[in-house]
């Protein structure tokens, strides 16, 4: 594999201030005309009368990072992006906190928007990550992606 493998995983929630800082870093790239960002936030879903307090994420890291390199190549081949940054939480992320940050930038908005949406779908479908929904009483169930 020729592409560099990047780590996308961060421990715990993704800090909104970090998202602001990531955006700010792109000011020096003056060929960019549009950024598209998707953020996944943990929902306090109510399941059988119990509220989800947090999701605990685990991954098969080696496989996930290989897969991400592959997915990045798919997206960069399909869309003329200036750049793409992806972060996914591991460990506990409380309801209301950010667990996924997908950030694409391109000269024109359409490419950034389409690439971001497609990347989110690929991550949900193909990345070996598991979410365990933890209820306030410490019982849990495994999250299912739609």
């Amino acid at each position: 594999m020729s592409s560099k493998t990047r780590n996308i995983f961060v421990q715990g929630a993704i800090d909104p201030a970090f998202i602001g800082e990531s955006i700010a870093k792109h000011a020096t790239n003056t060929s960019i005309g549009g950024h598209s960002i998707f953020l996944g936030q943990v929902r306090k879903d109510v399941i059988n009368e119990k509220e989800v307090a947090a999701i605990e994420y685990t991954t098969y890291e080696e496989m996930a990072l290989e897969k991400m390199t592959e997915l990045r190549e798919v997206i960069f081949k399909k869309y003329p992006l200036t750049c793409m940054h992806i972060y996914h939480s591991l460990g506990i992320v409380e309801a209301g906190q950010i667990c996924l940050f997908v950030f694409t930038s391109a000269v024109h908005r359409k490419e950034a928007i389409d690439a971001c949406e497609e990347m989110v779908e690929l991550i949900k479908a193909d990345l070996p990550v598991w979410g365990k929904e933890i209820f306030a009483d410490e019982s849990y169930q495994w999250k299912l992606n739609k």
Partner: protein
Amino acid sequence: MEINILAFGQVAGVTGANFNLKNEVMDTDNLQIILQQRYPALAGMKYAIAVNKKMVHQNTPIVENTTIALLPPFSGG
């Protein structure tokens, strides 16, 4: 041949995150039968098998130094 198996998510809840099989395991179909015997709680639990970090979609031989992983449906994001 002893093979080492990684398990994740709800499958790991049954098998543990990391375990060995000392049986002779020919291929992934054969592996599933052995796992089913050893861990009856896997019955009705959906999982895919990755061989050397690639998902297998059909029966695949298991040779020496193969990394096997049991992967329940992904639920990232």
